[in-house]
């Protein structure tokens, strides 16, 4: 079965995972759509520019002459402030990057990850999948063609939810084709 590069943000064939078996092939690597990162990127940009805005305002209003805070203290505060922004950006990126959904020719794998707080990897064999529902709701999801995919299973974890993935309807087809092939009901 061929991999589907158009649906994966990176080539699926170059990615491996820890519990992968020797005859298991990664078909899809799915993450939340890139547009979902816009919020934290915008927030980080505003936060990064905020000291500059305050500096300009301080110069214009000359309020800095009234307070006369030492440059060392302000410089130290700025160092800490930008450390926080760096950490926020990196943590947000890691959260996006490692919250990944894999579709292989044998199973689906859901990795939930929040740095320092939470990490959970669940998987379900393709034969245990009972129902797949793709949904695209709202203006933003319709415009950028992303949405959720609900996978009902008969395994320990009853429901796998692929959140904000690109093109959920095509992903649904790929999983169904993989199921057909895995269960010997069709060819892909």
């Amino acid at each position, binding site marked *: 079965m061929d991999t589907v590069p158009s649906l994966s943000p990176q080539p699926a064939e170059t990615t491996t995972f820890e519990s992968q078996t020797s005859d298991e092939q990664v078909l899809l690597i799915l993450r939340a759509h890139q547009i979902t990162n816009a919020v934290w990127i915008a927030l980080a940009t505003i936060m990064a520019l905020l000291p500059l805005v305050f500096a300009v305002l301080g110069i214009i209003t000359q309020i800095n002459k009234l307070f006369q805070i030492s440059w060392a203290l302000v410089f130290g505060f700025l160092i800490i402030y930008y450390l926080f922004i760096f950490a926020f950006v990196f943590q947000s990126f890691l959260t996006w990057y490692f919250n990944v959904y894999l579709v292989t020719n044998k199973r689906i794998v859901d990795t939930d990850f929040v740095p320092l707080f939470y*990490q959970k990897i669940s998987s379900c064999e393709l034969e245990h999948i009972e129902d797949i529902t793709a949904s695209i709701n709202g203006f933003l999801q319709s415009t950028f063609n992303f949405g959720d995919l609900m996978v009902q299973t008969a395994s320990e974890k009853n429901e796998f939810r692929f959140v904000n993935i690109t093109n959920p309807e095509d992903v649904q087809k790929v999983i169904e084709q993989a199921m057909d092939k895995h269960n010997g009901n069709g060819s892909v």
Partner: protein
Amino acid sequence: MGTDPFNLTSLTSSFAGLLKVFEIVIALLFIVYSLFVLKEVSMMNKALASQLAPRLKSIAHLQLLIGIVAVVVLLLILLI
């Protein structure tokens, strides 16, 4: 302009040393945080090996390095 009617200068200078120490403590906590992030990135890279894995580890190292540099700079500021 240039006057200090509320005597704010002396008020801020009395807290300046304390705030500088506080900044160093925060920067040290940032180093600890960076070490945890580095560990988690290594762990996740092992769980999911991808093309970006070495770069992510490099950024995690960079974050740690930035934290160390920040502590050094803040210590220098404290000593000045």
